C-alpha cells in the first residue's frame, strides 16, 4: 500500500483535453449547429464610410417570398458597448453610418439565395458626409464630429506625468526621440464570426450560441438590446476557432442574430464571410508612437516622454482601455521613475478596433525597445547589457504602482543570450545578416474588471456525484488556449486524481457559474486559483467523510488521490468509497471556489484611469531574432528565434510552449507582412490572400525556454503564458534588420519596398559623403 501515490499533473506536459474531438471533426463550432427549419441570416451593409441616413426602404425585400423577417436600426434603440462609460454603438446604424460596411439591416430568410435576393431589394438613401480615414484628418480643425458628444473626434485623451520628466531629461547624458507607425492589425482567427439564435416565442425565451470569448458580456448586451429580462436568456459558447481579442466584446453579429430571430419568431443562423470579419474588425488600432528616452552614460534610464495616437474607428469599443494600457504598461519591464504620457484615441470613419493579443502595449513596447537598441548602439554598449543596467528588483512597485512580486526577465535574457550564441554572433554575422534582441511583459488578468460588481473575479463549481466523477463547471471560455485543460489539471493536482476523473462543462450561462471571459490572460491565474480553492474545499469534504468512516480525526486522514487512509499501515478507503460516504445524507454535492484580487494590485491613483494596467502578476519575455536580408529584393527572412518567457510556473509545459510559439509567430506577421489597407474606407486587404499572415515557409524554428519565477500569488506560482512574447518579437526583428543592413526600419511592417527605399537612401547618402 505504501507505493500508492497521488497522481501529479502540474508541470507535466498534457495534450489538450479537447484534442481528440478536434482532430476527428466532432468538435462543434457555432456554424455547425444545423437545427431543422433554421433560417439564414444576411447583413445589409453601408456602401459609404460616413453619411446621414435619409431612408432605408425594406418593403420590397419584406415582400419577397421566403423572407421571414428583416430588422433595421429602427428595431433597436438601445446602444451597446463593452465599457459602461462608452456605450454608443447600435447593432445597426440609426442616424448615421460611420464606417464603410457598418450594418444597416439584417435579413432572415429560408435559404441563402433568398436572403441574398432580399439584400439586393433594400434601398438605402443617404446624404454623404466628409469622411476621415486617418487620425490626423479626423483631428483637423475643420473636421466635423462623428459623434456629437465627442468634440474634435477625441474619444479619450490621457495625460499623466509621474516624477519630474523635464529635469530628468536635463540630467540625461543622451536623449533620443523617434516616431514609429504601427499599422492596423486584424486577428484573422480562422473561424469567421457565427451565431445561432433560437427564439421561443411562447416563452419569450432566447438561446444564443456564439463564437465569443465573453459569453457573459454577450448575455448582458443581449438583455439590453433586446430589452429582455436577463433571466430569460441563455448564452452558450460552443468551440470557437480562435479569438486573439476580437471577440472580447459582444459583436453586432450576435445581437443582430438574436434581434432578427425574435422578429422572425424562429431560429436564425448568422455566419459572416471572411471579408465581413475584417469589417467587424476589433483588432489592433493603427498606432503612432512618439518616444523620447533619456539615459545616463552608464545606460540607466532617467526619463521616458511619449505620445500615442490610436486610430479608433467609428465607435469606442475598448478604445478607452487601449489608450490607457498604452500609457500604463510602459512601466513594469525596466526601472525608471520619471515618465510623461499623452495618449489620444481618435474617432475615424474606419471599422472599430478592439483588444488584440498584448492589448494596448504592442506599439509602445516596439517603440521603446527599438529606441533603446539605438541608444545602446550609440553608447557602444551591448543591448543586453544595457537592459541589465535597468532591471527592476522584485518584490517592488513601479513608479505607477504596478505590483511586481516575481521578475524573471534577468533569467530570460541570460537564456536567450546563451542559447542564441549572442556574444559570438552580434556584429559578426557578415553583410545582410543580423541579430537583434528585445524584451516585453504582459499582465496576468486585469485586476479590476470592466464590469465591476463586487463579485469575486472567478468562481468554479465542482459537482461530486454517486458515480465518483467530478464535474467541473466553469464559465471560463476555452478558445483554444488550453484553459479547460489547465483548470482540470489544477483540480486533479489538488485531489491527486487522474485528469480522466474530471469532466468539464464550460460556458453555458444556465449551467456554469458566471465568468468574465477569455481576455487579459486572466483565466489560468484567476480561474486557476479559483479551481485550486474549489478543489481544496472538495478535498476537505472528502477527508471529513473518510474520517467519519475511518473513525479518526480529519487531520489524520492521508489523501493519496485514489486512496484515503488513516495511517500509512491502514488499507484505507478507495476514492469511490469515500465519495459514497460523503454523499450519505447529503446527496449530490457541489462545492465552489472563488478567487479575488488584492487592492495592492489595483494600479495607481496618480491619474484618472490608472487602474488599467494593474494586475496580480506580470509575465516576462526576452527574445533574440536572427535574420537574413536579400540584397536584391530587400526581403527579410527570419532564420531563427530564441525566446524565453517567465511564466511563473509552467502548469502545462506543452501548452505553454505552444502559446509562446504562437505569440512569437503572430508578432512576426505584424513585424514583416500584416496590415489592413483601406481605399477611401473600403478595406482592400479583406481576404486571406491579401492580408498576409505568415504561411508555413515564413515560419522559422522557434526555440522556447521556459523560466519559472514562481509567483507568490499565482496558481502553483503560474503567470500569463499566451500574450507576453508577441510584442518583443517586433523590436527584436527591426533591431536584427538594423544589425544586418545598417539602417533601422521605423514603420511597420518591414516590407521589402520600404526596406529597399531605406537601404537606397543610406547608399546614396554614403555616396554623397564620399563625394
Amino acid at each position, binding site marked *: 500500500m505504501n507505493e500508492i501515490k497521488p497522481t501529479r499533473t502540474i508541470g507535466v506536459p498534457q*495534450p489538450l483535453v479537447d484534442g481528440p474531438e*478536434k482532430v*476527428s471533426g466532432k468538435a462543434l463550432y457555432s*456554424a455547425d449547429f444545423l437545427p431543422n427549419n433554421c433560417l439564414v441570416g444576411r447583413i445589409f451593409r453601408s456602401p459609404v464610410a460616413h453619411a446621414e441616413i435619409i431612408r432605408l426602404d425594406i418593403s420590397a425585400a419584406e415582400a419577397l417570398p421566403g423572407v421571414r423577417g428583416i430588422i433595421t436600426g429602427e428595431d433597436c434603440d438601445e446602444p451597446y458597448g463593452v465599457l459602461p462609460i462608452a456605450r454608443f454603438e447600435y447593432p445597426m446604424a440609426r442616424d448615421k453610418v460611420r464606417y464603410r460596411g457598418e450594418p444597416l439591416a439584417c435579413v432572415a430568410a429560408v435559404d441563402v439565395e433568398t436572403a441574398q435576393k432580399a439584400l439586393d431589394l433594400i434601398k438605402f438613401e443617404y446624404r454623404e458626409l466628409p469622411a476621415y480615414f486617418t487620425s490626423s484628418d479626423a483631428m483637423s480643425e475643420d473636421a466635423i464630429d462623428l459623434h456629437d458628444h465627442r468634440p474634435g473626434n477625441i474619444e479619450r485623451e490621457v495625460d499623466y506625468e509621474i516624477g519630474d520628466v523635464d529635469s530628468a531629461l536635463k540630467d540625461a547624458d543622451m536623449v533620443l526621440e523617434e516616431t514609429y507607425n504601427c499599422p492596423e492589425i486584424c486577428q484573422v482567427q*480562422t473561424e469567421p464570426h457565427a451565431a445561432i439564435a433560437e427564439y421561443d416565442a411562447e416563452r419569450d425565451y432566447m438561446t444564443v450560441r456564439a463564437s465569443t470569448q465573453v459569453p457573459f458580456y454577450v448575455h448582458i448586451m443581449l438583455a439590453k438590446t433586446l430589452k429582455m429580462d436577463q433571466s430569460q436568456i441563455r448564452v452558450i459558447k460552443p468551440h470557437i476557432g480562435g479569438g486573439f481579442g476580437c471577440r472580447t466584446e459582444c459583436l453586432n453579429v450576435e445581437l443582430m442574430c438574436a434581434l432578427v430571430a425574435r422578429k422572425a419568431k424562429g431560429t436564425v443562423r448568422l455566419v459572416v464571410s471572411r471579408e465581413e470579419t475584417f469589417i467587424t474588425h476589433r483588432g489592433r488600432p493603427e498606432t503612432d508612437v512618439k518616444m523620447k528616452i533619456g539615459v545616463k552614460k552608464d545606460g540607466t534610464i532617467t526619463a521616458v516622454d511619449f505620445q500615442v495616437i490610436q486610430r479608433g474607428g467609428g465607435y469606442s469599443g475598448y478604445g478607452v482601455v487601449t489608450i490607457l494600457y498604452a500609457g500604463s504598461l510602459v512601466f513594469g519591464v525596466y526601472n525608471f521613475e520619471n515618465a510623461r504620457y499623452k495618449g489620444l484615441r481618435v474617432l475615424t470613419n474606419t471599422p472599430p478596433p478592439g483588444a488584440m493579443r498584448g492589448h494596448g502595449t504592442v506599439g509602445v513596447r516596439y517603440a521603446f525597445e527599438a529606441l533603446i537598441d539605438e541608444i545602446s548602439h550609440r553608447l557602444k554598449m551591448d543591448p543586453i547589457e544595457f537592459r541589465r543596467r535597468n532591471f527592476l528588483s522584485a518584490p517592488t512597485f513601479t513608479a505607477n504602482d504596478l505590483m511586481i512580486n516575481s521578475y524573471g526577465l534577468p533569467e530570460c535574457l541570460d537564456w536567450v543570450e546563451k542559447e542564441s550564441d549572442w556574444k559570438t554572433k552580434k556584429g559578426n554575422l557578415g553583410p545582410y545578416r543580423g541579430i537583434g534582441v528585445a524584451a516585453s511583459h504582459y499582465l496576468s488578468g486585469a485586476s479590476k474588471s470592466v464590469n465591476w460588481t463586487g463579485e469575486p473575479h472567478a468562481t468554479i463549481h465542482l459537482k461530486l456525484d454517486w458515480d465518483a466523477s467530478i464535474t467541473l463547471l466553469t464559465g471560463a471560455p476555452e478558445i483554444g488556449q488550453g484553459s479547460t485543460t489547465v483548470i482540470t489539471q489544477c483540480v486533479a493536482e489538488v485531489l491527486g486524481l487522474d485528469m480522466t476523473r474530471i469532466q468539464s462543462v464550460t460556458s453555458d450561462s444556465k449551467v456554469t457559474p458566471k465568468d468574465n471571459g477569455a481576455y487579459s490572460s486572466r483565466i489560468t491565474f484567476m480561474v486557476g486559483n479559483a479551481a485550486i480553492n474549489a478543489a481544496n474545499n472538495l478535498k476537505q469534504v472528502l477527508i471529513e467523510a473518510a474520517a467519519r468512516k475511518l473513525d479518526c480525526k480529519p487531520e489524520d486522514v492521508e489523501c493519496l488521490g485514489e486512496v484515503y487512509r488513516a495511517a500509512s499501515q491502514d488499507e484505507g478507503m478507495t476514492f469511490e468509497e469515500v465519495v459514497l460516504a460523503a454523499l450519505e445524507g447529503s446527496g449530490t454535492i457541489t462545492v465552489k471556489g472563488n478567487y479575488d484580487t488584492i487592492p495592492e494590485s489595483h494600479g495607481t491613483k496618480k491619474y484618472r484611469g490608472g487602474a488599467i494596467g494593474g494586475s496580480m502578476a506580470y509575465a516576462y519575455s526576452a527574445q533574440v531574432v536572427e535574420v537574413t536580408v536579400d540584397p536584391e529584393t530587400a526581403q527579410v527572412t527570419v532564420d531563427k528565434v530564441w525566446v524565453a518567457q517567465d511564466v511563473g510556473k509552467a502548469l502545462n509545459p506543452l501548452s505553454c510552449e505552444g502559446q509562446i510559439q504562437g505569440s512569437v509567430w503572430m508578432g512576426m506577421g505584424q513585424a514583416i507582412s500584416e496590415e489592413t489597407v483601406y481605399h477611401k474606407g473600403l478595406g482592400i486587404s479583406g481576404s486571406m490572400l491579401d492580408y498576409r499572415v505568415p504561411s508555413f515557409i515564413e*515560419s522559422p524554428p522557434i526555440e522556447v525556454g521556459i523560466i519559472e519565477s514562481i509567483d507568490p500569488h499565482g496558481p502553483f506560482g503560474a503567470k500569463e503564458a499566451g500574450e507576453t512574447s508577441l510584442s518583443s518579437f517586433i523590436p527584436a526583428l527591426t533591431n536584427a534588420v538594423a544589425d544586418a543592413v545598417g539602417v533601422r526600419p521605423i514603420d511597420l511592417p518591414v516590407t*521589402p519596398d520600404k526596406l*529597399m527605399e531605406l537601404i537606397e537612401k543610406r547608399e546614396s547618402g554614403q555616396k554623397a559623403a564620399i563625394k
Partner: protein
Amino acid sequence: MPVQFNLNGVLCVEDGLPPTTSVLDYLRQHKGKTGTKEGCAEGDCGACTIVLAREDESGTAIYEAVNSCLLMLPQLDGANVVTVEGIADADTLDPVQAAMVETDGTQCGFCTPGFIMALYALRKGGEKPTDEVIHEALAGNLCRCTGYTPIVAAAKKACGNAPPDVVGARATLVPSSSYATENQRFSAPTSLEDLAALRAANPSAHLLAGGTDLGILTSKERQPLPEIISTVHVEELLEITETDDYLELGAAVTYTRALPYVKRLYPSLATLITRIGSRQIRNMGTFGGNIGTASPIGDTSPCLIALDATVILHSLSGARSVPLEDFFIGYRETCLGPSEFIKAIHIPKLSSGQAFRAYKISKRYDQDISSVIGAYRVGISDNKVASIRVAFGGMAATPKRASASEAALAGKDWTEETVLAVAAAVAEDFTPLSDHRASQAYRLRVAENLFVRLYRDLSEFEDLTDVVAA
C-alpha cells in the same frame, strides 16, 4: 443523370441539387459532415480540405487533397471522397490524428480538420516527410494559433511509413456526361469532338478546367452559373506528349501531373509552380485553366512567354496555333473565338547552351500574388548572349515581353557590366503601377536587380547545359 460517388466508403447518388452547389456546402448542409470547415470560401485557408482517392494507370492508390470550397458537386462524379469523419479506424484515431493530439497541434481546432486531411493525403502517399515535403504538403493550410511547429512535429511523427495501398473496387464508378437541373447544366464530355460540339452550341458557357478560379464565383460569390462545361474528362486534353524538341501539355492536365515533366525540363518553372496556391490547388488547377482565365496576375504566363510557348486552339472548324504572347489581348481578354477552346500548350525544350530562370517576388512566399515576376530564357555561346527572351509579370496590365531589355542584351558579352547596363532598358520597357503589393520604384529596382540575380545564378555554371539539370 445523377452524380454518384463514394463518401467515406458509402455510395451517394445525388440528383436535383444545383450543379453549382459547392462540395463544402453539400458536405455540411446536406450530409451533416460539419467537420469540414469554411474559413474563407476561396481556397486560401485550407480549412475545407478533403481527400479524393483514385487509382492511377498502374493501380497505385493516389490520395489528393483538394479544397472542397472550390469544387462543384458534379466534379465528385465517380470519385472516392474522404472527409475528416472517415479516417479513424473504428475507435482508433488515424496516426495523423493521434500525432496532432500528442503534439498540441490543435489549439482552437478550427483549421485542424483541413490540416488532418492534408496530412492524411501525405501519409497515404508514403512520401518521406522531409522539411521540404511537409512544407509543400501543408502550404495550402493556414493556422493562426500554433506557428506551425507542433504541426510539423506531428507530420514527422505520423507520416513516411504508410504501406502501399489500393483504393479497391469502390473506384470503379463511371462518371456521367451531364448533370442538370431546371435552370442549370453541368456537362462533362469525354472526347474532343463532343467538347467542340458542346462549345459551339454554348458559346457563353463557362469552361471548367479545374475550377480553382471558377469555383470562387460559385462558392464565395454564389453565382448560379447556368451552363458549365467541364474539360477534365476529355481524353485528348489529358495527354502529355514529349518529343526531342518539345513538351506538349493537354489543357486539362493538372499542375500535379505536369510537375514531374516540368521539374526535369524546366526546373526553375517547377519551383515557381510549387508556389502557386498549394497542393490542394495544384491537384485541381490546370495550365489550360490558368491561361484561359487570362488573369493579369497569373504566374505561369510570363514564364511560358519567355519559353516561347504556343497555345493550340481547337474548335469544330479545326485547330490553330497562337504564340502565347499574342494570345492575351487585354485585361482578362484573349483571342479565343466564341466556339474555340484551348487544347494544349506547346513548350519548346531548351536547346544546348540555353537556360531558363524564373524569379517570383511577393510579400509572402506562398499563396501570394507576385509584386514582380521575371522569366528568362538565355542562350550563351562563346560567352556572348546568343539568344534571349525575357518576360515580366506585375510590371504591366498583361504579362509582357521586355523587348528593350532583350535588345540591350542580345549579342553582347555575357558579363556583369552588360547586365548592370540593362537598367535603363527596363525603365524603357515598363512603367509599373504603385499599389499595396509594391511601389513603382520598388518594382523597377527589383526588375533591374533580377537581371543581376540571373547573371550570378548562371555564372555558377561552367556550361549552361548543366543549368537545366540543376
